[in-house]
């Protein structure tokens, strides 16, 4: 028997010809196409991160240079003086305020009446505006005709008389039409009797007559105030002396400030010198004109490359140091004795509140002043500044000052705290709304409601943030401020608000913006809870609500937490709304106001980048500082996202 093999059909599984490049078939190419696309996304992400990191981390060496310059020019010493002055001004302004309030309040009720009279004057005058204008025109005409005389003048005078009586009538009528309720601006509402009196005298004054009552009122007010000033003469003098005591320190400060600011510009000039020299040399190389070339080369040679000598720069500061110490000692002693001469109790309640607070303020001043004195005494331009200092002053710095002619400061904290504050407001508002709606839509609503609510909430995502920001400026800002002025809400910290654009306003809008993110993710998490849990719970005789609260929400909790974290990431990265609505005030929140900080205007990390990137010189310290802020934002987002993923992975639904 011979061995035979079936071979006729072997072609069936051989590679077909057709499309082929370099030995790769169509299938391979399709695979490379998709793989390549995925790869591009990853490569771009890596490039962006690398670029960001590179630009940002060169910030610290440059920042260090800047901090050194601040010290070596003696600006730092002037900074201590500045802080001393500020501390002193704080206490002076408190005392001044207490004094002024007391003097003002000495004529409290009458002053209020005078205010009412002024407001009434405005109201009544504008009510009789047309008649008033007619009278003025008639009077002018009569004035012109006075020189001509004759019949025309008589006609004109008669006209004036008629217009005057019409005006007076209108005033009378307007006066009758005004009631207590029409007063909006005055804080004090007078009694009906007083009001009638004020009204009568106002109408009388407006119609050109004398109003003895009003004149008397004014006289009485000034008399009372004068009496109060006399009574609190010592107080007044103390206040004046306290203000005056500053001037020696102020003068010295101003003198040194000018010198050190000049030092600084010299340092800056030296920093740019190599670049200027190179630019001139390049220019000389490129130009064909021999005279120009020679001129440029000469200028390049003339560029002074030497760095200014710190010893020379700080000479003036050291020279004045003893004087400064003497001045500040004297100021301190004077302040202490003057504060003792200030009365502890006066008649005014508001003044007393301030005065009660004074010992605490004084103590704080003393401490701060002493500390600054020690720093100033120990100051030396030779103290080394390490890289670590450059890092901490950026991350923990409480000031962000740019484009200053004195000294730029890059401290992250005001921006970081602003971003966090707004994000926390937003998340506190958004979480209950979005999680509750997710629970409602997923567990309670019927299909029709689901079809209405879900797309509606998801639509919020489609609103451009600039539109929301505009809404915040135009509508929400005014609305919030009006609402905050309601008496019933005055117990809320921070109400009534000072500013229309503030953290609360931005937080509300961001909450609205983040609702769809949190809602959608939380709804997904709830949806992933197996229906079997619900059935089991209901079959045990639990109500729908018990089932939701005890079984479904706990099971979906990890997903909900992840949703909230991702929502937080979305909020903290949002730019346009906060730029428009947060008020853009770069300052640390005033924590002394407690929860009132929520209604303060603030600035954010995203906002500062958007606002300042356009106008900075590329490669400058300011530019790099903005990159650093961007880096911080990037890190926050990265951390939040990975925490969310970890939460889902670790505590996620295992079944």
């Amino acid at each position, binding site marked *: 028997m011979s061995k035979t093999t079936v071979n006729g059909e072997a072609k069936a599984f051989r590679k077909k010809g057709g499309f082929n490049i370099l030995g790769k078939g169509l299938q391979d190419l399709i695979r490379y196409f998709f793989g390549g696309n995925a790869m591009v996304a990853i490569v771009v992400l890596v490039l962006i991160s690398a670029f960001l990191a590179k630009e940002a981390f060169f910030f610290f060496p440059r920042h260090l240079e800047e901090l050194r310059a601040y010290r070596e020019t003696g600006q730092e010493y002037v900074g201590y003086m500045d802080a001393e002055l500020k501390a002193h001004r704080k206490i002076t302004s408190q005392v001044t305020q207490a004094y002024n309030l007391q003097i003002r309040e000495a004529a409290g009720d009458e002053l209020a009446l005078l205010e009412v009279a002024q407001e009434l004057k405005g109201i009544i005058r504008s009510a009789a505006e047309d008649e008033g204008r007619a009278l003025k025109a008639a009077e002018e005409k009569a004035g012109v005709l006075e020189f001509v005389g004759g019949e025309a003048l008589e006609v004109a005078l008669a006209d004036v008389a008629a217009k005057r009586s019409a005006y007076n009538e209108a005033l009378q009528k307007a006066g009758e039409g005004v009631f207590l309720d029409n007063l909006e601006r005055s804080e004090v509402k007078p009694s009906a009797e007083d009001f009638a009196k004020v009204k009568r005298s106002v109408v009388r004054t407006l119609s050109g007559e004398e109003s003895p009552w009003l004149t008397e009122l004014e006289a009485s007010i000034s008399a009372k105030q004068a009496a109060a000033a006399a009574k609190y003469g010592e107080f007044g003098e103390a206040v004046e002396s306290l203000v005056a005591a500053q001037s020696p320190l102020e003068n010295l400060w101003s003198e040194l400030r000018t010198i050190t600011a000049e030092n600084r510009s010299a340092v800056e000039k030296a920093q740019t010198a190599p670049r200027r020299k190179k630019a001139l040399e390049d220019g000389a190389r490129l130009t064909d004109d021999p005279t120009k070339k020679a001129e440029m080369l000469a200028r390049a040679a003339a560029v002074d490359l030497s760095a200014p000598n710190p010893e020379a720069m700080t000479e003036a500061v050291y020279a004045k140091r003893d004087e400064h110490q003497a001045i500040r000692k004297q100021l301190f002693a004077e302040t202490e004795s003057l504060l003792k001469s200030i009365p502890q109790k006066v008649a005014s309640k508001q003044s007393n509140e301030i005065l009660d607070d004074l010992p605490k303020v004084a103590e704080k001043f003393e401490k701060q002043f002493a500390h600054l004195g020690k720093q100033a005494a120990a100051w030396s331009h030779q103290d080394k500044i390490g890289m670590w200092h450059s890092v901490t002053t950026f991350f923990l710095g409480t000031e962000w000052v740019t484009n200053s002619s004195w000294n730029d400061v890059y401290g992250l904290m005001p921006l970081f705290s602003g971003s966090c504050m707004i994000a926390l407001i937003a998340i506190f508002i958004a979480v209950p709304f979005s999680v509750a709606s997710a629970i409602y839509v997923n567990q309670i609503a019927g299909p029709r409601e689901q079809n209405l609510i879900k797309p509606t909430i998801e639509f919020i995502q489609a609103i451009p943030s600039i539109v929301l920001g505009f809404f915040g400026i135009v509508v929400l800002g005014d609305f919030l401020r009006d609402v905050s002025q309601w008496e019933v809400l005055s117990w809320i910290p921070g109400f009534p608000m000072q500013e229309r654009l503030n953290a609360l306003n931005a937080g509300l809008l961001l909450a609205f913006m983040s609702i769809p993110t949190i809602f959608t993710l939380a709804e997904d998490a709830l949806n992933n809870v197996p229906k079997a849990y619900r059935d*089991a*719970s209901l*079959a*045990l*005789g639990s109500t729908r609500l018990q089932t939701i609260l*005890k079984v479904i929400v706990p099971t979906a909790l990890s997903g909900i937490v992840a949703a909230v974290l991702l929502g937080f990431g979305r909020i903290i990265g949002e730019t346009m709304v906060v730029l428009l609505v947060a008020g853009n005030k770069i300052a640390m929140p005033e924590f002394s106001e407690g929860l009132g900080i929520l209604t303060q205007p603030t600035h954010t990390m995203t906002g500062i980048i958007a606002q300042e990137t356009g106008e900075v010189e590329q490669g400058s310290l300011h530019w790099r500082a903005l990159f650093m802020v961007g880096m911080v934002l990037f890190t926050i987002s990265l951390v939040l996202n990975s925490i969310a993923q970890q939460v889902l992975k670790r505590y996620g639904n295992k079944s």
Partner: protein
Amino acid sequence: MVIEMNQETATLGKETPDEPVIGRIKGKTMIECNDVSFSYDNGKTNTLDHISLDIPEKQVTAFIGPSGCGKSTFLRCFNRMNDLIDSARITSGSINIMGQDIHAPEVDVIELRKQVGMVFQKYNPFPKSIYENVSYGPRIQGVRDKKELDAIVERSLKGAALWDEVKDRLNSSAFGLSGGQQQRLCIARAIAVQPHVILMDEPCSALDPIATAKVEELIMELREKYTIVIVTHSMQQASRISDNTAFFYLGKLIEYDTTKTLFSTPSQKQTEDYISGRFG
């Protein structure tokens, strides 16, 4: 009781079914179904078609039949789990449990479900500890006392023959148990609220033979205290553990008798065909 139904006349739309025939099933009636029809689409088509049968107290009654015959649907009518589905409702007849029409307006469905417990096809313990799973029912009913809850948990787990296996790890996750243990945990969870009736919807279909044997053993023990209605695909299981068996086909009750009779001398041709494996 044996219901004899003429298949042909029923499909032609006969309004009233034949009266049940007095049968061999003894015992006090726990669940009484009269002429029950059920529809998933507001009465357009009836998934259950005029079913009447009485389920006796403290016995095991098995529902058998091919997939889609409506036996699970019928089971879910007893604790009104079908209420959760929109447009699903009883279109005729009534179900009385312990003499009370469960669809009457004065019935509180929450209370009904406390009396009529359920064990599902796929074991579904909550993602909580063993202790929390068993104590869930009593807790939502307002039992707060730790000692009382401890006692209930121990009693229920013993009742479900699981106590010895889990007593040392009551606070560990229920997901750490094997499939059969999880299903017995679900039974323990059901009996923790002390129902009168336990409905079991193919409780062993997701279990291996050894776990199945344990659950079956448990069912035999539970019969002492509870009325059990079990839906099963396995005719061997029905014949092993049940006292009475009902055979459903295409939404109709074909035959209902003691298990012994039904499997040895079925009165209907369809029943005989099904149990001998000729279709289904």
